[in-house]
């Protein structure tokens, strides 16, 4: 059945797209609050996934009843500490530099994180299990319960994030810092704490995206390169000034990627998808949901 294949492609697109969206939200959060274009987001997620994998293997070998749960919790704890440390050691001391300078800091971070991952974990590629194994057959469609887990998890995280940003005092602090950190500071917003916390959140979101994509890519030092690039493009496509935009952008890229790959050509898939997205950007230069900045002369 043709529509079943179509549906399966769309469903798979939503699964990967929601991971792009998670990673993109991390990038946007950091950019809004601390003006840093975090090119190292993907590498940090890769490092967290390696740590998660190690915890998983060790706890399974030690006979722990739920090694995956232990690994998942370990991932959250590790990435929180990791995000905190990166912000404290590398980002905060350079927070006075220009936008370009901050970009270079994250480029340096890529080298440091990727180099350490290679030195600590080696350059081999490892198998990581799915959160829920097995698959269900519906007509001609094969659906993995893991996909539901991924999509559900992404939705929960996004809802929590949106609720927090929209309705809690802390969310107000985040939005205030994003809008104008100097004024926010004068109004008594602890901008340093807000920045540290956004780095922690973004790193945790990256780690979850990494853990969820790992069964498809395997765990190795280059595993996040593609996801990371797509999350950036998702963020730009949706608009860096909105928090809904990256989600829509991520889903669009995920679905388009699958459909183009299936119906047109797998070899030219990336070229066609990116080409299409760049054409959209030419017509909507601040992204689909982005605010057009008012310019001062």
């Amino acid at each position, binding site marked *: 059945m043709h529509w079943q294949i179509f549906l399966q492609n769309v469903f798979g697109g939503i699964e990967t797209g929601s991971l792009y969206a998670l990673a993109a939200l991390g990038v946007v959060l950091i950019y809004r609050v601390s003006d840093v274009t975090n090119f190292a987001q993907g590498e940090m997620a890769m490092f967290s996934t390696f740590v998660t994998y190690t915890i998983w293997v060790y706890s399974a070998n030690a006979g722990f009843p739920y090694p995956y749960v232990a690994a998942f919790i370990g991932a959250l704890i590790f990435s929180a500490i990791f995000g905190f440390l990166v912000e404290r050691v590398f980002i905060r001391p350079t927070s006075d530099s220009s936008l370009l300078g901050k970009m270079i800091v994250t480029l340096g971070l890529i080298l440091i994180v990727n180099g350490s991952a290679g*030195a600590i974990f080696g350059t081999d590629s490892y198998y990581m299990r799915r959160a829920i194994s097995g698959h269900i057959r519906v007509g001609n469609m094969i659906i993995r319960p893991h996909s539901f887990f991924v999509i559900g998890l992404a939705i929960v995280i996004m809802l929590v994030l949106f609720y927090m940003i929209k309705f809690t005092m802390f969310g107000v602090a985040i939005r205030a810092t994003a809008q104008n950190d100097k004024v926010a500071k004068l109004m008594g917003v602890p901008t340093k704490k807000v920045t540290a916390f956004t780095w922690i959140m973004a790193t945790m979101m990256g780690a979850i995206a990494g853990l969820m994509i790992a069964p498809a890519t395997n765990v190795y030092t280059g595993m996040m390169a593609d996801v990371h690039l797509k999350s950036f493009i998702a963020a*730009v496509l949706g608009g860096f000034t909105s928090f809904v935009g990256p989600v829509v952008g991520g889903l669009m890229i995920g679905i388009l990627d699958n459909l183009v790959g299936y119906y047109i050509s797998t070899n030219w898939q990336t070229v066609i998808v990116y080409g299409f997205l760049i054409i959209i*950007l030419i017509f909507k230069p601040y992204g689909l949901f982005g605010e057009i900045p008012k310019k001062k002369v």
Partner: protein
Amino acid sequence: MAIMKLFNNNPYFKYILGTIIFMIIVFIDLQIGLFASRTVNLLIRVVYFSIVAIGFNILLGYAGQISLGHAAFMGFGAYLTAFISNNFGLGFLPTIILSGLIPMIFGIVLGLVALRLERLYLAIATLGIGVTIEFVFREWVWFTNGFSGARLSRPEIFGFAFNNSRHFLLLATFILFLVVLFTYNLIRSKTGRALSAMRDSNHAAQAMGISLLKYKLIAFALSAFYVGLAGSLYAYAERYVHPSTWGAELSLDMLAMVVIGGLASIGGSITGAGFLVLVPRLVQDLPVIGGITNINFILTGLAMILVIRFMPIGIYNWFDYKVIQPFYYKMLNFDDPGGDD
């Protein structure tokens, strides 16, 4: 003192002197074999990446436009060189010029995209375009020979074959010298001033009658030309072009070269290129810690962050302001050391 005066009165003097000293060292090396051939190859890399960095600096430092897709132009230049010299048998000079001019046309197209986008949106969109072109290199086997890579023979000018990489280093250095002179004059011409005006304020530049359309396209075209030319030198130096060289990492390296060396400065571009090519290799040769896996990446990353932390205007510019210019003041009792690059 006399030398100091020469430095100040003749703007080309420091470039001429630098080139001559460097060429003499290479020439002595040619006679007595001072450097290992690995070092010579590294120096060739520094030279062509200097041309890349100067081109990228015209775009970012002088015109204030960003592109994270310029690795694609370098790859395009390299592939064109392989394609032209293999299929049409043109000589070295027409080949490298064509390898600069054809990417220049694509640079103008990228400039048209840049007319609509700005800042981070431009950066990420060009990053996407660069990756797209990298995929085109992989799949367009007729032109690039796909993953097998394109090969080419050694360059030849007027019957003289550059079989020795030291000869090629001399040639590349001379080309870099010409590029530096051209750039020095360009940024002091009407075009260069217009680019800087556009960087500082779009609106003010427009109010003075500077056409943003024209100068944005000029900035993209020029930088694509430089980068394509450097790609051509890459192809001749390595004599092998592989599609996975031209990804986002290379574009980000170009950005790092320019910001670390110093924005809007020729010396800064060369310093930055030297930094990114040499630091990873020098670190590897350090005693004790040099043996740790990946230590070169880790320490290079650390060095990049430290440069931004302590010399936010770039290594070359920092030395210029903190060391060289105060030295001029003291030696010559000048009010203004002059020279604004």
